[in-house]
């Protein structure tokens, strides 16, 4: 079932290759169908009752096939094609499928090189689903890097303005992260043995310290040190940095504003809605379970970086005047909560972090959609160009208000639950400065409401004024049906989760408990 979820897009690609590129709408419809099937499978998987009892050690829908075996003279290294999901990945998969569908619907606006665009889009969705379902580090890494190249081209060909600069910057930054993971993976390959004595990179094996091969470079008794830090701590730090680049967290965030601003709207939606989550998912799924003994050493640092990201992102958003830039920095700010929740290392913190991932997935997608709708009509993103749009586009104004309010963290929407859980998690954790951290977080939230409401007031309220009034008056029509559908779908998800958060809490409880039990 999961293989189908992952590889359906590849089937679509084969179909695309056969279809001549002049039949644009056939390709678009096929692409939509493929994403629709993915969503159907995701819903089916999500609704399976057994997910609630699954964890990293007992993944649901588990498949495992021998893939690569390396003969290393005395031992054999086995790498498996193994897929499975548990309470952590199931909500993320469903969220990704929904966001992919929204992005795909919005891709109908793209008319330039439709065939190539949809091929890359489908490769991307394979990689995303693969990342969330892989149960072997090698396989995870394969999918993780497979996202890079399609995104590089999607930004570089269909992007705007400084697209080449943004594409190469994005590629180089995320490739740094990939190389760091590669290094750690190379060290891990020789350090963990399964029950048969074969070297293995399966998540299940890697999360058990007793599976460590004695005398290997990452074993607990290894005396190797660099700069007074043991090898295991270095490995953890490398993984953390690698995923923090993807997340992105201060100080590794600088690719994000450029990539988000220059990418075409559907790709911005995927970038913010899904790809940032892969970074956080990597920390929860890989960095922490493999190095549970190291996390306490760095918990304070992680929490401080998280708090700083929240504040820094918010202040940057305040200072920006480009709509996409504001939202890109708000992503940095919101992802800081994930770092804080992880650092708290307790159940509330983890629940909050995971919930924030899902919630922000929907909301950031909605935010980029809001900007994209405006940009698509006028090709202008500066705040200063608009005023009083309410008079022209009432539906748009109303939905935007809901999205902004949800992102600020008003009760009743999903973001509120997530932020609340993270802050309670931090307050009840063993961190050194829980109160100061939560105060900084609160300050970040206040700034958040300031920049969202300021944007709203500037663009939508007041008298109607447009930078190029005569031309834009023609373009600025209210929402089309598909746009209404996309925005409402994302909002319904957010409100649904805000009113009934147990949907995710119940599902992920066992899986998060398992990770806590390792710590």
């Amino acid at each position: 079932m999961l293989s189908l979820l992952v590889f359906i897009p590849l089937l679509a690609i084969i179909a695309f290759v056969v279809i001549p590129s002049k039949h644009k709408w056939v390709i678009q419809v096929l692409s939509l169908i493929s994403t629709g099937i993915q969503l159907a499978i995701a819903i089916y998987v999500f609704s399976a009752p057994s997910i609630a009892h699954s964890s990293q050690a007992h993944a649901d829908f588990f498949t495992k096939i021998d893939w690569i075996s390396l003969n290393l003279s005395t031992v054999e290294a086995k790498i498996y094609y193994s897929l499975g999901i548990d309470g952590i990945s199931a909500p993320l998969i469903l969220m990704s499928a929904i966001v992919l569908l929204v992005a795909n619907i919005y891709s109908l606006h793209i008319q330039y090189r439709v065939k190539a665009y949809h091929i890359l889009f489908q490769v991307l969705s394979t990689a995303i689903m693969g990342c969330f379902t892989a149960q072997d580090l090698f396989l995870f890494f394969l999918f993780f890097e497979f996202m890079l190249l399609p995104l590089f081209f999607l930004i570089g060909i269909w992007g705007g303005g400084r697209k080449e600069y943004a594409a190469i910057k994005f590629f180089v930054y995320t490739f740094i992260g990939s190389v760091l993971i590669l290094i750690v993976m190379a060290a891990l390959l020789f350090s963990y043995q399964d029950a048969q004595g074969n070297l293995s990179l399966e998540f299940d094996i890697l999360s058990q310290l007793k599976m460590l091969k004695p005398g290997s470079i990452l074993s607990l008794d290894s005396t190797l040190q660099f700069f007074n830090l043991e090898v295991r701590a270095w490995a953890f730090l490398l993984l953390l940095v690698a995923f923090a680049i993807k997340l992105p967290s201060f100080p590794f965030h600088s690719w994000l504003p450029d990539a988000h601003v220059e990418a075409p709207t559907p790709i911005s939606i995927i970038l913010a809605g899904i790809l940032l989550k892969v970074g956080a998912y990597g920390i929860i799924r890989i960095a922490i379970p493999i190095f549970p003994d190291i996390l306490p050493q760095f918990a304070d640092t992680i929490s401080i970086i998280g708090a700083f990201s929240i504040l820094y992102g918010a202040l940057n958003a305040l200072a920006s005047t480009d709509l996409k830039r504001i939202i890109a920095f708000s992503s940095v700010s919101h992802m800081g909560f994930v770092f804080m929740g992880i650092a708290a290392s307790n159940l509330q913190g983890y629940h909050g972090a995971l919930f924030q991932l899902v919630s922000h997935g929907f909301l950031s997608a909605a935010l980029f959609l809001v900007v994209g709708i405006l940009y698509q009509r006028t090709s202008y993103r500066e705040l200063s160009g608009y005023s009083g749009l309410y008079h022209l586009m009432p539906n748009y104004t109303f939905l935007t208000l809901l999205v902004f309010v949800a992102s600020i963290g008003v009760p009743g929407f999903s973001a509120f639950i997530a932020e609340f859980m993270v802050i309670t998690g931090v307050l009840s954790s063993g961190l050194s400065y829980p109160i100061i951290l939560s105060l900084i977080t609160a300050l970040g939230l206040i700034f958040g409401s300031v920049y969202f409401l300021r944007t709203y007031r500037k663009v939508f309220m007041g008298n109607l004024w447009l930078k190029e009034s005569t031309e834009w008056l023609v373009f600025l029509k209210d929402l089309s049906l598909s746009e209404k559908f996309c925005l409402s779908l994302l909002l319904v998800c957010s409100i649904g989760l805000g009113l009934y958060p147990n949907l995710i809490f119940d599902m992920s409880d066992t899986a998060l408990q398992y990770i806590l039990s390792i710590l």
Partner: protein
Amino acid sequence: MKELLANNFESLPYLLPELCLFVGILVQFAWNLFSKKPINHILITAITLIISCASLSLSPKDEAFIFNELLHYSNLSFTSSYVLLGLGILILPIYYFDTRVFRNKALPEILMVFLCLILSGLLLIKSDNWIVFTLSFESIALLSYLLFLLTSNDTKSIEASYKYFLFGVVCSAFMLLGIGILYAITGEINAFSSNFLHQLSMQASLFISLGLWLFFIGFFFKLSLVPFHFWAPDVYEAGSNAVLTTLAILPKFAVFIFLFRFVHQFSFTIDNYPLIWPKFDFVNNLGFILCATFILSNTAILRVYSFKRILAYAGMSQMSFMLVFLLIFSNQALSFGIYYFIAYALGTCLVFVSNTLLENTYKTYHIEHYTGLAHKSFFVGIFLLIGLVSFIGLPGTAGFIAKFFVFSEAIQFYSAFQHQIVLFMIILALIVSIISVYYYLCLPLAYFFKPLPQTQRNLAEIESKGFYIYAVLLSLCIVVMGLFPNSILNFIHFEANPNLFIFP
């Protein structure tokens, strides 16, 4: 005397592929008298290579010292002969696509030199004796100059060929001096006998270091490592694509295998972990050269704007990645090294053949000339990209698995021996991998993302069915090797110390 002859005749079956090649060269020579049709000559070369590859499977499968211990026939030589001939077959189609070579009047001669190059490579892989080694090594060197010179048609390439020749001759002279010293202090003509090692161990470190360093210079030149790399960028810039692919792959492979055999005889396996001969610090000495190459090739490349020059520096960088395996005295290092080489060769072929077509049609040279060509020839760019991506080492390509092996082996070696230079090399390799993204992608960046300049709107599209078939095959090989490395690894798997290769 009688015994000697008997041995020589008994040895002949072991040299079946070499004999086939020899016959093929003669046929080519004779055919040249009757017909000048270029396609026929390429076909003859192809048939020769295929027959000699097939004859390899007929040759005996036991380990033997043939021609009175002049050559050593083993599992390693058997497998690497296969690889070498296979690489030859792989490169040959580029001679067909490259008009600069294909329309050359000297094409039959060029192809003969090509076959001779493979022949000497096969001998070099097997050579056990200083004399055979020197002969085959020097003939590889001379044939390389000849191949380059035969295709030089402008001042730039003739200048480059002089540089190549003179520099090569000096390095060969140094190498001969090194061999002389090694021979003088050991009195042993066989480079792989236990007596050689025994005698060498009793000498003063100074002589050993001097002899080995001078000896290695020839290799460093051939593999274009710093500081013996000066020829590479100029030769790459001026050469024709087909010849460059040959020079970048065939001689390097033969030299690479011999270097592995030579260096790895200095390790002894004890408890799975090899003990390295203490008199000469291979890890630090060679590691120093590799680090220098890593640093220099990756800094010099950033200021270069000719695509072929970029490829020259990239080849140096790839070569230093490959040679990391040389310092890792583990049992699987050699098979991983060959794996890396095959990955490198496939990528090189794909990049060069795509570049051939672009050069033929658009006269591209500078990176700027590639601007916006995606609007004309989209798929050629895609194949170019696949080759470059394999160089970068993105997952799904052969280059990724190869790089993964480099890192995992190096880390494993470091945790066992804790040589600081290996750690330094790991860090360098990491930084280099990141920098390399920039220069490998600068061409696709221009090719795909930028609009086509107004002046070039009326350029033709590239349409060549043969090219597409060839490029698709190469890309498939790269992807299959990247997703299922076992397909190749099972074939190049060796047991135990490289010098004691036994048939499974």
